[in-house]
């Protein structure tokens, strides 16, 4: 097939990718957007088989089929709550692919032009960091890696390693025929850098990190696109790099954590608490019957779901309870913090899965002023995002993060598994407030009991 046909196809593919992303930024057209982009990807893949002088086609087909099948199957079977780590791992694979492209180009000794070499090295570095960083992010969210791992003088080690990697990269660029030892060492260090940068970062900051690594992979793909002289890769990669950066900023803003803070001064349980404001009061326990009656006779209930609810798979039960309350004339709304779940919008997806209509779901800005008029705020498996310490205690690591002001509601009921601190390990002052009651138990069982009691109250 003529080369112009391949080039024209790539051009159309790039256009469709951009239109697809555009469509994905509105709920009405989002579904169409991903389907368009999907067709474009298939077209790009098929057309590439007609590249002149293409060898190793059998091996190529094997790699596509096996890689595609593994990812397709895992993507189909993964639970909705585990989505963020899947996005992380697929993103890491993209970064790894970009790095491997650079590695192969160096191994072939094809790179001679210094500009090309520079971009190849940059893409390799960024891609490697995205790969190993995403693997760590996956391990953390999946619970394989439990604790934040922090070296002594972490920031110093980070900088030292980054400089060393950069020096090796520079050596590759200036050398006409870089030795394979040099190249291997460069990749090892780049991979180590990604792992070491990500491992001290606490779970609460993970969404920002995944988004950042997503932008990284985009950039790496764009750079390798230049190396290969493939404008489709450049356009798609850089568009993702830029949009990913914007998305990262939006998320970081929602958490009030500048990206530099996320990377260099991670929140950790040990540093938090202890010093700063002393929390007064006691935690007061509530039974499922109490909770049922308080909510049944309220006029407005706001449900604040967190990741704990999603992990327990309780969203269907919660929606069942909400519908039951509504039949009794109670107004029920859902209040979502921007970083509820593990990523912005993750909770909306989980609630949508349970069948909760969008018009019952309110963002932080939409609902925060209304809390004083809400009779009962039911917090299920959320912790840091409702911690009033973020408003009051300047020494707290989460100080300044916008929170849902549930403590201002008339009554607060917190459904919680046990008495421990939140995901970030910070003590929650909300639990000790006078208007707050604790309903202990797994979200699934606690809500099931509440439903039973609400039904009993009806008859």
């Amino acid at each position, binding site marked *: 097939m003529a080369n112009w046909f391949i080039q024209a196809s790539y051009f159309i593919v790039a256009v469709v990718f951009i239109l697809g992303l555009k469509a994905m930024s509105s709920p009405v057209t989002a579904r169409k957007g991903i389907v368009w982009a999907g067709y474009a990807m298939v077209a790009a893949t098929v057309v590439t088989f007609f590249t002149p002088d293409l060898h190793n086609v059998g091996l190529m087909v094997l790699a596509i089929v096996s890689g595609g099948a593994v990812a397709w199957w895992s993507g189909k079977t993964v639970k909705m709550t585990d989505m963020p780590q899947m996005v992380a791992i697929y993103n890491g694979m993209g970064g790894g692919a970009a790095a491997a492209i650079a590695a192969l180009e160096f191994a072939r000794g094809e790179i001679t032009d210094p500009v090309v070499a520079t971009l190849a090295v940059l893409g390799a570095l960024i891609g490697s960091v995205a790969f190993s960083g995403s693997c760590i992010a996956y391990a953390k969210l999946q619970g394989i890696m439990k604790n934040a791992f922090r070296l002594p003088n972490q920031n110093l080690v980070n900088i030292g390693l980054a400089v060393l990697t950069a020096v090796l990269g520079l050596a590759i660029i200036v050398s006409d025929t870089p030795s394979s030892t040099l190249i291997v060492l460069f990749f090892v260090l780049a991979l180590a850098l990604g792992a070491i940068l990500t491992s001290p970062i606490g779970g609460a900051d993970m969404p920002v990190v995944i988004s950042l690594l997503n932008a990284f992979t985009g950039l790496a793909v764009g750079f390798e*696109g230049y190396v290969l002289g493939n404008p489709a890769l450049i356009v798609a990669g850089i568009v993702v790099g830029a949009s990913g950066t914007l998305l990262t900023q939006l998320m970081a803003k929602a958490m009030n954590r500048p990206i530099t803070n996320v990377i260099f001064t991670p929140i950790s349980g040990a540093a938090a608490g202890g010093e700063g404001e002393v929390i007064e009061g006691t935690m007061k326990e509530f039974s499922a019957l109490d909770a049922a009656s308080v909510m049944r006779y309220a006029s407005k209930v706001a449900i604040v779901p967190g990741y704990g609810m999603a992990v327990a798979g309780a969203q269907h039960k919660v929606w069942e309870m909400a519908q039951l309350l509504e039949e009794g004339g109670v107004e029920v709304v859902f209040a979502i913090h921007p970083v509820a779940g593990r990523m912005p919008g993750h909770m*909306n997806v989980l609630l949508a899965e349970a069948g909760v209509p969008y018009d019952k779901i309110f963002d932080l800005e939409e609902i925060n002023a209304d809390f004083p008029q809400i009779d009962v705020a039911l917090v299920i498996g959320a912790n840091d995002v409702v911690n009033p310490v973020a408003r009051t205690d300047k020494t707290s690591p989460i100080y300044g993060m916008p929170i849902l002001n549930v403590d201002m509601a008339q009554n607060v009921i917190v459904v919680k598994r046990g008495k421990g601190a939140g995901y970030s390990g910070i003590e929650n002052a909300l639990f000790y407030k006078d208007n707050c009651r604790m309903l202990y138990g797994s979200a699934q069982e606690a809500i099931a009991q509440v439903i039973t009691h609400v039904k009993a109250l009806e008859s």
Partner: protein
Amino acid sequence: MEGYAALYIFMLAAFTGYEVISRVPVILHTPLMSGSNFVHGVVLVGAMVVLGHADPEDPVQLVIGFIAVFLGAANAAGGYVVTERMLAMFKGGNKKEGGA
């Protein structure tokens, strides 16, 4: 490719990326991140080209090329499935756009 032309492509693509998602509602942040994750799966195309031009006699090149294509294909396929599953939940029902 002409160096400066590429530089212009970089710049324009960056602006495009920024503009395309600048007014996205919060509810779509996760699906959009996943969607953009899928889009950079086009790295598969680049991986195919390098594997296709690798020396069939050199096992090191073949292994690296295989890894590149395998990872690229996984990125594209996984990114698509996951995004499609998330967005499938947005069909029908209410039309509320959700404030950003």
